[in-house]
Structures are given as structure tokens and as C-alpha cells.
């Protein structure tokens, strides 16, 4: 029987009060509810505060390089499509350093759950602006404020026809749990952007700031209508919608790959006898 205890790990090295704690606890609850045992799934992460999450629980873990979680996750899925793969990543890790991989993962629609801890800042490196920092954000390295416009991950997801595009808020744990569960059951790339207050380096986008703006999508909102989803995705500022912004039923990449039709390649035994026949092609 999996219980919360099954997933308990060492004390996280995050700042007390960090939004990551709520994400970690919700993550564990979801795994318990889904009755997944720690060895039955793999968490891939890059580098950043968010990316340390797998060390603070129990799971198969590939904690790789900054920005490169998605290609590792893709490699695991293409080798063993029976293994559920979750990526825990930050806004810098995923939207900045790993940008090209995000575009490719959305185009492929690889069946990976992508949980982005979006604190609109580079936490681990002590407070530089990230791709989602609002215009004007000031930091030690940009005393005059950020000039570039922020990346809108929801609009990007809709534009690339990503199969599952959702947003949640770390302090709304019930909502976060629902979103994580929906992402887990989606068969394709599931982008879940999680608004995560960084109490140390982001003095603008605080718990209070988010609470004043965040609202649940209306019950009659239709996430399958791509055009209205795009309009919803553009909402940011005074009011910030959370929930499933967009979804479609594109089959996952793995389902199109002929080599994977027989299931996981990891379970297939190697038969050296075929080589003899292939050698004949060279005569």
C-alpha cells in the first residue's frame, strides 16, 4: 500500500515558506491517490530549485543538466513507453535554457508530464530575471529593469497545439492536485505551469499578488475550442485564469512510432542471428 510515508524523503533545502513545499506535498498526494509506487515512474529534472524536487521524495530519478530534462525524458519514453515520466522544472530551466526542447516536445506530443514551477525568477542563482519575469522587473544584474516582454507559456502551448495546457497556483493545493491528476491521465505532452511564489528573490509576485489576481476558469469554459483558448491564454495581469486552458486529443508521439508498436524496447531480447542475413546485403 502506498501512503504519504512511502514518498517521504529528506528535508528539502528550500527557503522556509517557499511555494515549492506545497508543490512537493501535492505531488506526493497525487502519487498516493494514483497508487503509483516509487519505482513505477521516473522523474526527470534539470537544474534549479524546482529541479531538486525528486531528491526530496522517493522515485526513479534522472536529475540531469540545466535546461535538458525534456530530451532525457523523451529518450526514456522512446525506450520504454510503459514507464510514466514526469519532468519537474523551473521557468528558467524549461522556458529559457531548454526553449528549443520545449518547442520540439510540443510538436512531438511526447507523453511526458511537464510540471513547471514558475516563480518568474531564477531562484537558485539568486534572483536574476527569468523568461517569465514581467517587463520592468528589477534585479542586481538589470538595475534598470527588464526590457524584454515575458514569455507566455499558455499562449505558446495553444499556438503549438500542445495537447494539454494548464495553469495552477501553488497555494491553491486542491486545484493543483486536480490539475496534476488531469495532467497525469493525459496521453501526450501535458504542460502544467504552476505559479510559485519565491519569497526570497521575487518581491513583486508574492502570495498576496497572486491571490488577488488568480481565479478559477468558469465552469462553462470550453478548453477544446482553440481560438477561445488562445484568448484565455492571453489573459495576464489584473486577472490570471487557472485551470485547463486548452486540450486536444492528438495521439501521443509514442503511438505513431512503428518500432514501439510491440511495446517497450527495454523488454525486447537481443537476437544476434539476424546480422548474418543483413551481411548478405553487402555481397
Amino acid at each position: 500500500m502506498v501512503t504519504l510515508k512511502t514518498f517521504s524523503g529528506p528535508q528539502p533545502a528550500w527557503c522556509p515558506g517557499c511555494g515549492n513545499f506545497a508543490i512537493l506535498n501535492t505531488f506526493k498526494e497525487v502519487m498516493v491517490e494514483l497508487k503509483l509506487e516509487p519505482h513505477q515512474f521516473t522523474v526527470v529534472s534539470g537544474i534549479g530549485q524546482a529541479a531538486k524536487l525528486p531528491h526530496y521524495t522517493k522515485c526513479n530519478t534522472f536529475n540531469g543538466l540545466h535546461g535538458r530534462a525534456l530530451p532525457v525524458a523523451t529518450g526514456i519514453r522512446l525506450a520504454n513507453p510503459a514507464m510514466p515520466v514526469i519532468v519537474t522544472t523551473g521557468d528558467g530551466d524549461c522556458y529559457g535554457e531548454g526553449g528549443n526542447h520545449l518547442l520540439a516536445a510540443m510538436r512531438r506530443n511526447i507523453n511526458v508530464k511537464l510540471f513547471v514551477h514558475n516563480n518568474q525568477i531564477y531562484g537558485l542563482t539568486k534572483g536574476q530575471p527569468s523568461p517569465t519575469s514581467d517587463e520592468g522587473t528589477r534585479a542586481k544584474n538589470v538595475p534598470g529593469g527588464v526590457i524584454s516582454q515575458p514569455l507566455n507559456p499558455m499562449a505558446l502551448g495553444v499556438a503549438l497545439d500542445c495537447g494539454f495546457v494548464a495553469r495552477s497556483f501553488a497555494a491553491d493545493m486542491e486545484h493543483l492536485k486536480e490539475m496534476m491528476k488531469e495532467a497525469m491521465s493525459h496521453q501526450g505532452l501535458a504542460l502544467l505551469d504552476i505559479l510559485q511564489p519565491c519569497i526570497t528573490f521575487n518581491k513583486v509576485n508574492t502570495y498576496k499578488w497572486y491571490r488577488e489576481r488568480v481565479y478559477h476558469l468558469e465552469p462553462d469554459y470550453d478548453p477544446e475550442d482553440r481560438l477561445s483558448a488562445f484568448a484565455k491564454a492571453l489573459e495576464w495581469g489584473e486577472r490570471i485564469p487557472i485551470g485547463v486552458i486548452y486540450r486536444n486529443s492528438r495521439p501521443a508521439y509514442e503511438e505513431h512510432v512503428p518500432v514501439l508498436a510491440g511495446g517497450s524496447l527495454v523488454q525486447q531480447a537481443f537476437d544476434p542471428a539476424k546480422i548474418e542475413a543483413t551481411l548478405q546485403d553487402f555481397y
Partner: protein
Amino acid sequence: MDYSIKIGGEAGQGIQTIGEGLGRIFARSGYHVFSHQDYESRVRGGHNFYQLRFANHPLAASRQNMDILVALDRESITRHGQELTPKGRVIYDAAALDFSSDDPAFLAIPFEKLAQEQGGSKIMANTVATGAVLGMLGLDLDLLLKLIAALFHKKGDAVVEANRNAARAGYQFAREHGDGVSFEVAAAEGQQRLLIGGIEAIGLGALASGCTFYAAYPMTPSTGILNFLASKGKEYGVMVEQAEDEIAAINMALGASYAGLRAMTGTSGGGFALMAEGLSLAGMTETPIVIAMGQRPGPATGLPTRTEQGDLGFLLTAGHGEFPRVILAPGTAEQAFYLTNKAFELAEKYQIPVFLLFDTYLGDSQWTYDGLDLKQVSYHDYRLRGEAFGEQQDYKRYALTDSGISPLGVPGDAAHLVVVDSDEHDEEGHIIEDNATRNQMVEKRLFRKLPLIKGEMAPPKLYGEQEPRVVLVGWGSTYGVMKEAVDALAESEKIAMLHFSEIFPLPEMAPFDYRAFLDQVPLAVCIELNATGQFSRLLRAETGFEFKAVIHKYDGRPFTVEELIGEIHGHLKDI
């Protein structure tokens, strides 16, 4: 008997089709064949050539001069007209080239007109030319007719018949008009032989080693591996993925390897520069991976389709931090096959990155062999799977062991967790900061493994005179040309070749003390296709031996036998 044929023309004219067809026919006839290619980085136009050699003895390189030049453009004549042997002939289409010559060495054959008459299309001019070459050599046309059937059967009987007629027309024209032109080709002394290129040998070696994952981003000269494995993907159950960039390619391969597959990626210098951080990740996480690194001249984009041995130094130190690696550099297609297998075995046994370092010349060249011996191919599954994994007590991915090799479990196969981390980690794979664990891990993944890995490296191959006055030293793709130079000079000189194909870490001095050997030879010449002598630097750093004579070439072209002999003569004066 030893004939060379060069087919020259623009990109897109089909010189490769003619070259490959002739190569296959010679090999099937039972001759030994060697071929190499020279082409520009463009899809149409420019000047390219395909050079083949066939004989009744094993061949390992191209000659400077040729017996038949098939000129599909005028530039072939201006560039290579002087390269004919005394009895050499040029065949060309006077109308197509808008050129004619009274020189008796030149035989005009209306390739296009004959193609039009026989097959109804100029496209078959290449088939006419192939038939004409066989006609000049007085070889049997039958093998070409069979090859045509195999190549075109999917396009229907009409296409097959038209091409066969085109081949016959070219053949007959050469027989009728080539008086005093044809060659006295000795009958083949062997059985039908296997003809294989360097790229194919690497791909085949990967398949024979149980490789089931290949991710890459296209880049000459490694793209052929991607194509080859993709063509076999379904049959062998190989997942082949075109990655969004080289960074993704190596990280995907590492993900697949972590998941339990034998994984490989391939690239060239520029793409490998992007992989450097991923290489370091393989080192830290001790994830097995094979990297096929095809060199071409740099820096930057350099000469994209040409050849060089310019990236050895880069590979030796690529990737930040300190971790073990192996570099294997085959000199022939046969070595490429067996060394690809060795690369997979070593990568998995020691959980390290292993390079297969080749170059454009090796990738594109072809060799003939009686066969490849599959009994020499090893396959050991070094991973912990299924029940065997489940039975482990207290599994730790980075358990400290005497050999430094920790158990490599397949995630999901048992209740044990497989945790790997690019941060420094403890035995379980979790992030640490303390110095004691750091020291233990460096000791484990580096110092304990290094001597074991070094012991796996095969000694260099000594060919020719056992107590020579002159020794040619080289690595990788210069094997063939050095060997032929030794053969050619052996009559007048006590000469040998010392060839390294397992170059890092350099092999131990037992059982063959190559350092002592080199010390005793009056003249040791290090031959490299680069400007700075990267291998001689490695040898000096590792063994203290310093070459007094070197031959370096960096124009992006391989040595021909004559060219290398000329260079060696320049050094013989010094002893």
C-alpha cells in the same frame, strides 16, 4: 593487375550511382576493391569525383593515376586529364560536353544519344557509361544486367529493360570503337566479396552489438549512420530519432541508456561542441553511451564535405570536469565494425562514454573482404534486470566497489529505485556537498576504473619489417595509405607501419612495448591529416616519446599512395 577508375562530374549527375555500381560488380566478380569519394558541399553543380580501384590483391588506398577517366563534365578533363596512366583512357560524351579531342587517349561515347535511343531518356546516360567501362575492361556484362534488375525492379519491367538496353549499348560501343583501347584484365581470382563502406560498417557494428537507440542531428559525415540505422529500424527494433539539436541528441541517448537500452549518438566536430556538456553528464552519471564522431576540417563550418583528423585533441579534453573516456579510431571498414562492437561493450562494462572517432574519408570509402567474422563480436548484458535486479539487497546505483563499477539497474524492473544525478551525489544518487563523499566518488568513478580501462586497449598494429630502419606511425583512417606505402617501399627500405586504432587511453606497454620499439628505430615519422600533430602530442604526453619527423596534411583531402611516398622520400635523406 591493378586498375583505377575515376568518375568525375557535377553534383547531381549521378557519379555515385556509376561508382557504386562498378564497385559492386567488381566485388561480385571476385576482385578486391577500394573506393573513395571527393565532393563539394552543394547539391547541384561544382566538381565531384568517385575513385575506384580493383585488383587481385587486397587494396587499402587510392592511387594518384587512373586507367579510365569517365568525364561527365569538362572540368573532369581539365582537372584530371593529366592523371592518366600511360595507357589510360578518357571516355566522355562529346555532344554533352561540347568538346572533342583528337588525342588517341580520348574516346568519345555518345552516352546521352545512346540512352535516348535505347531507353528513351537521357537519364540512362549513367547506365550507358557503366556499360561502357565494363566494355573497355572486357568484363562480363551479365553482372551489370543483374544489378539493374535488382536496382530497378520496383519501377517495373519496362524501366529494367530500358536500362539493360542502355547498358548493352554502352558496352557494345566501347567494344567496337575502343580498338587498342581495351585493357588486359586478368580474371578474378577470388569468390564474390563483401563490399562495405565505413559508415555502413559502423551501423552494422551497432546492430551487431544490440544497439537499439540512436538519436542524432544531421551533419556530414555522420548523417549516413542515421540513414542506415533508420533503414534497419523496423527489422531490428531500433528507435531512431532525429533530435531538435545535438544537445537534445546526446541527452536523449542518455535517457534511453538510463532506461536500459544500448544507445548511441553521432555527429561531427561542430555538433559535438554542442554535446560537450552532455558528455560530462555521461561522465558524472556513469551512463553508458557510444558517440560516433566524424571529423571534417574545421574550425567552425570549415570544409563540410572533406576530411581531416583535426578533432582528437578536442575529444581528449572535451566536457568539463574529470571523468574516464575511451577513444577508438578505426583505420578500415573492418576495424570500424569490430571497434563499434568494442565501443558498446566498454561503454556498458565501465559505464562510460566511448568515442568512435572517424572522418569523412573513412566514412565514405569502401573496402572488400571475404566476410566479417561474427564470432569475433561480443555481447554481454552488463545491466541488472528483472529478477536478478529484484534479488539485490539494499540496491544503490553508486555503491562503492573495488572496481569502481556500481550495479547498473534498469528502472522499473524491480522495486529498487534508480537515482542518478548530475550533481555530486552519494551512493544512492542524491545530492551531497561534503568533501568525504566527493573524494570517495572521484576515487570510484575515475581512479578505480582507469587502470581497468587501460588494460582493455589493444596494442598498436605493427606491419612490415619487424626490425625496421623507418617506421610510419599513424592512427585512424591513414591505415590503408600507410600500409600501401610500406608495401611499395619495402623493396628498397627496411620499413614498417605502427598503426594505433585504440588511442585513448593509450595501451599499456605490456605485451608490446611500443615506446621501446620507437626508441630503437632510426627514423620514426608520425603521419597525420592535421596541422599540429595532435596524436604525436598525445604520444609525447603519455609516453615521453618525441617524433623528430612528421608529415602533416590539412588541405581537406586524403593522401594518395604516391603523394605519401613522395613525402616519405623527403625524410629518408635524413638517416
